[in-house]
């Protein structure tokens, strides 16, 4: 159980900065409570423990929760063949975390991608530009409050976007919807004016709220008996 040993060594070095190692499906995850010190932890993991490869950096948008952003680092130890996951959280007001490009150069493009997709900035990054979208694109498309269909943008002479016509498309699942009806991928309220559509779905506030941004917010109070 090499990964757990490494996690304990990290824990011994940094103490309360790291959470207790969590194991799920044979993978060890450590949470770094202060994002400002992630560089230090990574530096130690690479220099002293020998995690010579950074496989990936992902970001999660915990929309509606605080702190909003989670950054996930996948470390790999090539000699011991062991994986280790580090996680840290960044608040929405701050939306900034120190870069780890000084530790692994591969972090360069991963951090640019996170900045591009989620809008979390990395302090000290040598060249923090958008990478998949174009310079001047105004939104961060992987945020949970960015609609699946997209938003209209126009940057003259460069590029423009139009919302994708999702009507009839098979993919309007609401992630984490509270029940089968809300999660059902093909559920949608027909957006036609010619046909009266007073269906069972339209009376469900949470389904409407998920599909129409302007609809009234779901009523969470208990229904009257």
């Amino acid at each position, binding site marked *: 159980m090499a990964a757990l040993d490494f996690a304990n060594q990290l824990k011994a070095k940094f103490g309360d900065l790291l959470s207790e190692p969590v194991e799920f499906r044979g993978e060890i995850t450590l949470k770094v409570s202060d994002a400002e010190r992630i560089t230090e932890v990574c530096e130690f993991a690479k220099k002293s423990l020998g995690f010579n490869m950074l496989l990936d950096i992902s970001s999660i948008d915990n929309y509606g929760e605080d702190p909003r952003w989670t950054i996930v680092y996948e470390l790999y130890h090539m000699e011991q063949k062991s994986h280790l996951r580090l996680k840290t959280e960044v608040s929405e007001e701050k939306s900034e975390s120190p870069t780890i490009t000084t530790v*692994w150069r591969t972090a360069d*493009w991963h951090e640019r991608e996170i900045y591009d997709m989620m809008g979390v900035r990395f302090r000290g990054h040598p060249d923090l530009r958008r990478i998949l979208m174009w310079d001047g694109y105004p939104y961060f498309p992987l945020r949970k409050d960015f609609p699946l269909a997209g938003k209209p943008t126009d940057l003259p002479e460069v590029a423009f976007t139009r919302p994708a016509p999702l009507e009839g498309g*098979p*993919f309007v699942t609401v*992630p984490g919807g509270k029940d089968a009806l809300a999660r059902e991928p093909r559920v949608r309220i027909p957006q036609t004016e010619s046909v009266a559509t007073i269906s069972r779905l339209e009376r469900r506030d949470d389904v409407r709220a998920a599909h129409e941004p302007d609809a009234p917010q779901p009523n969470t109070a208990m229904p009257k008996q």
Partner: protein
Amino acid sequence: MATTQEITFRDAPSRIAAADASHVGDTEGQLAEAASEMEGEKMVLNMGPSHPSTHGVLRIVLEMDGEIITKAIPDVGYLHRGDEKIAENMTYTQFIPYTDRLDYLAPLANNVAYALAVEKLMGIDTKLTPRCQYIRVICCELARVSAHLLGLGAYAMDVGALTVFMHTFTEREKLYNLFEALTGARFTTTYTRIGGVSRDTPPGWVAAVRKFCDEVVVNFDESETLLTRNRIFVDRTRDVGVISKEDAIDYGLTGPNLRGCGVDYDVRKAHPYLVYKDLEFDVPIGSVGDCYDRYLVRMEEMRQSVRIVRQCLDRIPGGADNEGKEPVNIADGKVTLPPKNKVLTSMEELIHQFINVTQGVNAPVGEVYFGAENPKGELGFYINSRGGGTPYRLKIRAPSFVNLSILPHVLPGHMMSDVVSILGSFDFVMGECDR
């Protein structure tokens, strides 16, 4: 009279020395000195996004000093479709067709990697039926042969050897016929399902694969005759685009590009999934890390893939056409679809079918990372689940994306014409890079 010309292959240490000498980007050689004298004469050249050797839509902004590249800025994203956003909005099974379109030269391998990632999340990756595991390994290795054949053909064509492309494409055509027989589609296979595959091998398929294995090795020999000791090919690739072991690991390179640098890392050996631990195969590694080594590694990998496929064909549980009636999918109605005849007659199977199709498999809360050895490198899926049938966040670790990030480090110091061989030797796919 045809004469044979001897090519002297220098041993690895002297090749490294020669490569260092020709590398003006990071040594203070005479060329670099000459370059500084010519300051102010730099030219910016746009390569791509539509250029034959960028294999899709990669754009590189090259800052040139005469013929020498002084700075390279890759620009990716022209093929960005928002796959990760799409994945958050559909069930796990519905996303399988999208994985076809990542590395579109090896869709079967992507299908397998994605299915295994979801199965790892659900804790059923070790419960797959033996026959399913063997079929998946055959798929992965055939996909590897298919991807490397194209990568090799295009690489050779980029550096001027047009014939190889025709040769390798003949074999790929046969492979596509096999894929069509197996999955129903030549290109967008969508073959795997969570907990199994969409259908068992059709009658006669195993025999057809065996026949293909015998034919394709002849083709490898022919291609190798055309390239390995071809003076032009060797001159254009040897000591070009040298990457050191340390740089390769630091930049997160994986797959043949990493092994070409002499790092012995193959996910199939380091973390065996499916039945790879029972199969015999070697992992070829390079010595110098130049374009020529990357070519040699790919060539040998295809032979090893054929070796793996042959072992699987011999051992596949249930026999060639499943005379032994081995199950293919996990017999759990909550994961895989129940048999159709039962759906229409039995209440429980009907419910399973309905829930499976409308809500998807019910994954637990948790997060996993699963990496598989794909033709281009380690294709990883990080899945963060909050329960239910859709992922809360699905991150794709695309090997091409990571492999390309080393370009600003490798290209400077090379001639303009070397860019073509370096790009060819990297064998990237923009569909995967841009997601």
